């Protein structure tokens, strides 16, 4: 028998995430998947799971879970307190949670999204090859709600536990290496200089679809509408208000606003952990 986790406290937004859905963008299906992919991978690795096994992704306020039989978990990503039945437990390393005990993943003290990996992986039914919740189009399981039951898969044999794991801290300043995008020619040189020299800040309107920014508006060289075209992860799209939006994993597959630049995928994990107000700089290269 495998374990089930009862959701005691769902938190502000907790979703199931894995490596996402690939190969369906032409049908309008977003990639989805964990925003901080390295954090998901490290949490899974510490448990002997596949790196892309499904985990829970919390948002700012954590969550609490009660397994019906003993499970081993790792809580990583955003820093937070971890307790089991009220007693402090390790963050970032495997923790044994006895049957009936409550694992509480506290509010993020640094960063935005904590990842709760469980040995055996979260075992909800996959949709189009992925267990991820897609908040743009509603594919995959619903976000967690109090009282919901989350199934767990069969654990792999335990792996040797390291003394410490290499978790990066959240960025004090989010530096995003970009290449100019396919529609950079929709912007005058001055706008491109602004993009790569000004300091933006993470907007409170950011979500899994996009990291929105506040800062100087980018003017366009010409008005007019761009016929819908395919969008990539990390695209820096400029909507009519001129404030760049960085597309994250639940981004729409096609769009009509010009993409001025594209952020290197390796930098997106830090974007997922940059809290509201964090300074953002775009650097060419």
């Amino acid at each position, binding site marked *: 028998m495998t374990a089930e986790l009862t959701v005691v406290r769902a938190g502000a937004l907790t979703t199931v995430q894995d490596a996402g859905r690939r190969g369906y963008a032409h049908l309008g299906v977003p990639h989805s998947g964990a925003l901080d992919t390295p954090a998901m991978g490290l949490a899974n690795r510490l448990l002997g799971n596949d790196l892309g096994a499904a985990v829970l992704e919390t948002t700012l306020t954590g969550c609490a879970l009660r397994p019906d039989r003993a499970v081993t978990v790792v809580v990583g990503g955003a820093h937070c307190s971890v307790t089991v039945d009220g007693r402090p437990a390790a963050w970032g390393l495997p923790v044994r949670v006895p049957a009936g005990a409550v694992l509480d993943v506290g509010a993020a003290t640094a960063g935005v999204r904590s990842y709760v990996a469980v040995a055996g992986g979260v075992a909800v039914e996959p949709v189009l090859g992925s267990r991820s919740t897609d908040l743009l189009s509603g594919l995959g399981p619903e976000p967690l709600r109090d009282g919901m039951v989350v199934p767990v898969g069969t654990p792999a044999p335990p792996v040797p536990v390291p003394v410490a794991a290499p978790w990066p801290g959240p960025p004090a300043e989010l530096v995003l290496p970009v290449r100019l995008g396919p529609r950079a020619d929709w912007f005058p040189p001055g706008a491109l200089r602004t993009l790569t020299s000004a300091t933006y800040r993470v907007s409170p309107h950011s979500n899994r679809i996009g990291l929105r920014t506040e800062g100087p508006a980018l003017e366009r060289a010409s008005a007019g509408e761009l016929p819908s075209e395919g969008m990539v992860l990390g695209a820096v799209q400029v909507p009519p208000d001129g404030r760049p939006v960085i597309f994250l994993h639940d981004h729409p597959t096609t769009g009509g606003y010009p993409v001025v630049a*594209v952020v290197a995928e390796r930098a997106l994990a830090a974007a997922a952990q940059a809290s509201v107000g964090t300074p953002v700089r775009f650097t060419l290269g």
Partner: protein
Amino acid sequence: MTRSPILTARPVGRHALLVELSDAGGTAAFHAEVLRRRAAGTLPPVEEVVPGARTVLLDGVGDPEALARGLAEWQVPPAADDDGEVVEIPVRYDGPDLAEVAALWGVAPEEVAALHTAHAYRVAFCGFAPGFGYLTGLPEELHVPRRATPRTRVPAGAVALAGPYSAVYPRATPGGWQLIGTMPDPGPLWDPGRERAALLAPGTRVRFVVADAGPAAVAA
């Protein structure tokens, strides 16, 4: 030799290429050629092939620059009018914007069905929601603008027009298109549990038929 529809190929980050085509027909032709080469194993590995209105995005490519250079050698035959199967979409022409569309077309409301079913359509690209296809094929004189005020809820199965496109809403969403009719059973449009999740995938040919006279939607 036919003139290549490829205008430009622009890198999009390190792993993608946006190929810009001359027009919607050139886009359909290039998209079909990409799928042919992919099936034949002569295309370098590409994770996603995402057509747009006048572009095809090739995402998850090892070396976009090399792929872009190779495009110069491509022969892209025009999209055939008779390739592949035709999906039939039965429609009850009873949409709330039927009278407005009829007025824009300069015909009586009961003539909209005959005009809309008279043309052959093709799914140019998807977007907005899973399985939402943008269908080209409506002649230019029948193009209509979006509604000035979008509706907060358009029901699943709504058959709609906007600009050069026709579409069938796979599920209830907000929407700004002009609603001319209803597909009585929209279930086949999108089913992620099915091998072919979207009935209206890019490249698919489509015929609208009047519901009472025609068969149910067919997914071969």
